[in-house]
């Protein structure tokens, strides 16, 4: 029983580890597959063979699976949409074109409802976010073992780490959220000027108009506004990550049941189907939420706010 529990833990941990390529520091003790230890003389760029190695790499590492899948999926999105855009006709839209136009008009309507300023970048950005995040989330519906096992067979390394859902990696979601954050600050300063941006941080929400009271209010405002400003990208990124990570985790737990006998396996199959159906809603909703919140943040950045 103990080894079975060990197996389950190992299975789960294996599924939660990204394929990491990074720089191992000098003096790191590597364990190879034969259990021998050799100490690195120089720091070395290599694939991590265990989560300890991945942790030891620190910031100087790249999750190849996360980045690879997000680039493949993003490229697929751009490829399909730009091909349709190039071939699009004014006449009756058919097949793929009508689907693409459906998505585009849905995003366009949503953005027009939320964002009332002149910026031609926001709507394309919202479309990119919606489609890309949706496709990355969609990877969650592929049974958890298919692609990792296929990758292990192809490379011949059965311990290969391979996470196929980029949005279950906080690097991916926070990377996008921080980009949104950077764009927010960029547009804030562009629309309001640097002074306007600083004023927004210091003279809100408490403002008396008398200098000797404001002196005391400014620090309070600054703390409040800074916290709410920084909370935006963090919550944006972590919301998506949390939802998808939890969904992935449940798929992994269900997948554990497949190895536990026929009855439990069939029950697991039913559960997997039910959870996948429910998850279709989650992945769409999370993609939509990420898009809407990004648009809302952009609208806030553009809001020069005459009523102080």
């Amino acid at each position: 029983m103990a080894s079975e529990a060990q197996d389950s833990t190992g299975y789960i941990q294996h599924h939660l580890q990204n394929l990491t390529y990074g720089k191992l520091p000098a003096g790191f003790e590597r364990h190879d597959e034969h259990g021998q230890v050799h100490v690195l003389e120089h720091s070395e760029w290599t694939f991590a063979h265990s989560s300890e190695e991945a942790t030891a790499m620190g910031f100087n590492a790249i999750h190849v699976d996360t980045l690879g899948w997000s680039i493949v999926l993003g490229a697929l999105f751009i490829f399909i949409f730009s091909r349709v855009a190039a071939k699009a006709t004014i006449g009756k839209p058919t097949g793929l074109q009508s689907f693409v136009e459906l998505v585009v008009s849905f995003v366009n309507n949503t953005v027009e409802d939320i964002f009332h300023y002149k910026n031609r970048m926001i709507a394309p950005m919202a479309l990119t976010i919606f489609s890309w995040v949706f496709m990355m989330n969609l990877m969650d519906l592929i049974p958890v073992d298919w692609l990792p096992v296929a990758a292990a067979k192809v490379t011949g390394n059965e311990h290969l780490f391979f996470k196929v859902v980029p949005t279950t990696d906080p690097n991916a979601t926070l990377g996008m959220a921080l980009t949104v954050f950077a764009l927010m600050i960029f547009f804030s300063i562009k629309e309001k000027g640097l002074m306007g941006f600083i004023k927004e941080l210091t003279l809100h929400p408490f403002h008396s108009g008398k200098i000797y009271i404001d002196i005391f209010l400014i620090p309070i405002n600054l703390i409040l506004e800074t916290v709410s400003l920084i909370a935006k990208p963090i919550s944006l990124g972590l919301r998506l990550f949390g939802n998808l990570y939890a969904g992935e985790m449940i798929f992994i737990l269900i997948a554990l049941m497949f190895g536990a006998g026929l009855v439990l396996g069939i029950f697991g199959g039913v559960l997997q189907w039910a959870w996948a159906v429910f998850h279709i809603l989650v992945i769409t909703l999370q993609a939509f939420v990420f898009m809407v919140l990004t648009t809302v943040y952009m609208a806030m950045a553009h809001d020069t706010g005459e009523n102080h």
Partner: protein
Amino acid sequence: MNINLTLIGQSITFLIFIAFCWKYVWPALIKVMKDREDKIAAGLEAADRADKDLELAQKEAAKKLHEAKEQAASILDQANKRANQIVDEAKQQATAEAGRIKTAAEAEVEQMVNRAKEELRGKVAALAIAGAEKVLQANINEAANTELVNKLAAEL
């Protein structure tokens, strides 16, 4: 679960995809959709206009038809009047002609009667004289008798 360079990689990827979408995907699709909307709007407007045109044309046609009917009726009326007039005229002419022919015929008949009377008178005188001669068997002064007989004959 480690935060590492993937974060920055994902940011750059994100920005590149946004740029692509912004340049090559969004404007083309939006333009096509906008153009189609305009085309549909124009089509609907044209259909509306055609409907109105049709209605106008139908009204116009009905009006024309009505006018034509009226004209035809008036022409028919005039023709009838003219025909009546012609018939009347012809009747009058015929009556006049008939009168004229009758008068001429009457005159001729009178003439012929007169001539016959004249002839008869002459013959009656001679006959009377011959009769009287035979009756009397006498030689009578022909001149005096002739005068007498002529007087008799004039009395006829």
